[in-house]
């Protein structure tokens, strides 16, 4: 296998993960091979215990695989040490979490600026401000830059988290149950943000257990017991803008009635 020959953003070759917890070895991921090309929007699905979170952690360079190889943007990251992985996370990956994971009592702007603090090249503070503001504009929150997370709604907090993920211009956006803590309308709004970003060319990998949400992506991978069971394109893909429009009309109708 020559990783340079194709331009896959993510290439997993027979990835395994075994956790040694006490006397029992937990084989969470048992040989996953997967290729994700630039511009894809992929949902990783599966019930709890299927190994999707473990896979996500490995894709996110938070957890090294026990066995197998992982090329991210052409780099074999399965052999890198802690600090090198930290740099990869900083430069190439943007994270969006279920629980938003924003720093409390820190303004939205400062939350978005945070990844730039850990850049290897120093970014002058005026450029940090500029980039953070631009990121917030992309998610439509520029006006709330000085708000603290507790002054923002769940959807707004998740937008701040997305802005933070985008600020270092990563090649990959990883979202772990990004709508898990949100109501259905806000969920659709967030999926709208993702669709827009994907249209601009950003590769997105999202873990979810909700089929409704997965239908906004382009490709669905289903895991069971640490192995891929289905990997297919999404048929009748949903468009977040249209869904929101529909939802509004329904609400209008309820009001009128």
């Amino acid at each position, binding site marked *: 296998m020559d990783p340079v020959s194709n331009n896959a953003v993510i290439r997993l070759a027979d990835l395994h993960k075994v956790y040694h917890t006490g006397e029992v070895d937990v084989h969470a991921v048992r040989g996953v091979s997967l290729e994700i090309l630039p511009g894809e929007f992929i949902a990783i699905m599966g019930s709890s215990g299927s190994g999707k979170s473990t896979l996500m952690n490995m894709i996110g360079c*938070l957890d090294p695989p026990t066995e197998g190889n992982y090329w991210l943007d052409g780099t074999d990251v399965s052999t890198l040490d802690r600090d090198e992985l930290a740099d990869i996370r900083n*430069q190439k990956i943007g994270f969006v979490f279920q629980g938003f994971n924003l*720093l409390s009592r820190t303004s939205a702007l400062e939350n978005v600026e945070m990844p730039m603090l850990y850049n290897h090249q120093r970014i002058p503070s005026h450029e940090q401000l500029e980039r953070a503001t631009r990121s917030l504009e992309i998610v439509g929150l520029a006006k709330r830059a000085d708000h603290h997370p507790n002054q923002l709604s769940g959807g707004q907090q998740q937008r701040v988290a997305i802005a933070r993920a985008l600020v270092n211009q990563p090649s990959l956006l990883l979202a772990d149950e990004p709508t898990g803590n949100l109501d259905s309308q806000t969920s659709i709004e967030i999926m709208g943000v993702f669709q827009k970003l994907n249209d601009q060319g950003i590769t997105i990998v999202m873990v979810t257990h909700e089929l409704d949400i997965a239908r906004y992506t382009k490709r669905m991978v289903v895991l069971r017991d640490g192995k891929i069971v289905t990997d297919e394109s999404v048929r009748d893909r949903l468009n977040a803008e249209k869904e929101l429009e529909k939802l509004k009309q329904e609400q209008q109708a309820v009001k009128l009635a």
Partner: protein
Amino acid sequence: MRILASIKIALRALRRNKMRSLLTMLGIIIGVGAVIGLVSLTGGATKQVEDQVSSLGESIVTVFSGNFTSGGMRGGWGSAPTLTVEDTKAITSIQNVVAVSPEVRDREQVLANGLNWNTQVMGESPDYPQIRNWPIGSGSMFGDQDVRSLAKVAVIGQTVVDELFPGEDPVGQTIRIRNLPFKIVGVLAPKGFNLFGQDQDDIVVVPYTSHMHRITARTFVNDILVEAASDQVIDQVQNDIQDLLLARHRSKEQDFTVRNQVELMEMATKSSQEMEFLLVGVAAVSLAVGGIGIMNIMLVSVTERTREIGIRMAVGARAADILIQFLIEAVTLSLIGGTIGIILGMAFSLTVAYLKDMPAVTPFFWIAIAFASSGLVGICSGFYPAWKASKLDPIDALRYE
């Protein structure tokens, strides 16, 4: 990661828990405050001593007459009549000697105005006020002519004025010493008590010739005060006097002793130096206690902020970035504590100094030491918690509730 950004993050974290930060700093504040306070007060006491010693005259060498030995009994310095007026005149010709005064001391009953008072009567040369760095308050010092003519003139101290001439101007009036009338030509400016608690103003100064011939009929002087041109040449002057007198006296045993003010000052400030040494011990103990407090709170803080650490690691913070962040937080905490301690310690010493009417001097050296050691305490006590934080696993940290 930028140090400045880290300091900003640290300050924000400390502001978030104002009360806790303050309590954490308390150990350092009290430790540093106590040390700075006490050092300032001992510094003040030392300065007082130094001022008094230098008020004796700054670059002064004193020659004491010898040890008197009689039938195997040795009387100690000053007991033997070995120094003469001729010795004094010889010393005058030594290089870098600017003023010399032979000193003859005696206690006498002094009468004036129908009052009497027992006081120290000193025979001195006209250089005496200059050597002792002691200005004449009113009138003037007697002159060389008075010395040559054995004049019955006197300059008196403020205490003698108060005792014999209450509410009067004594200049031009007469006092009687051993029934001889001495005309008062000047009054010495008040000087206060010396190091040993003696009232320096309780004094009558007359020409040494008048003292030796009219009052005591002595042929020897008690000691000789010599002023050197500066304190740099004091050793040379001291050695030259030593050589000169040894040659003049042609004695096997040295029958005099030469001391300078620096030596006297060292003796007087020795105890306060020992006190400072003791304080260093107290400071070390209290800083160690403060450091334990900081380490404790930093450990709590690391646990509380596990999730924050996880977030920072997820977005690309290296282990070293986390380490530095917490280390800077601990150092910031201890440096703020140290600074507050320094300020409170100085305020404390100034208050005590004001109430007790004594000087307080905070040596810059001690401020630097206090600041540096608070920083060091921060580094030492912050390192373990910071190291622990940096070793967290990002996934575990992110999952931490």
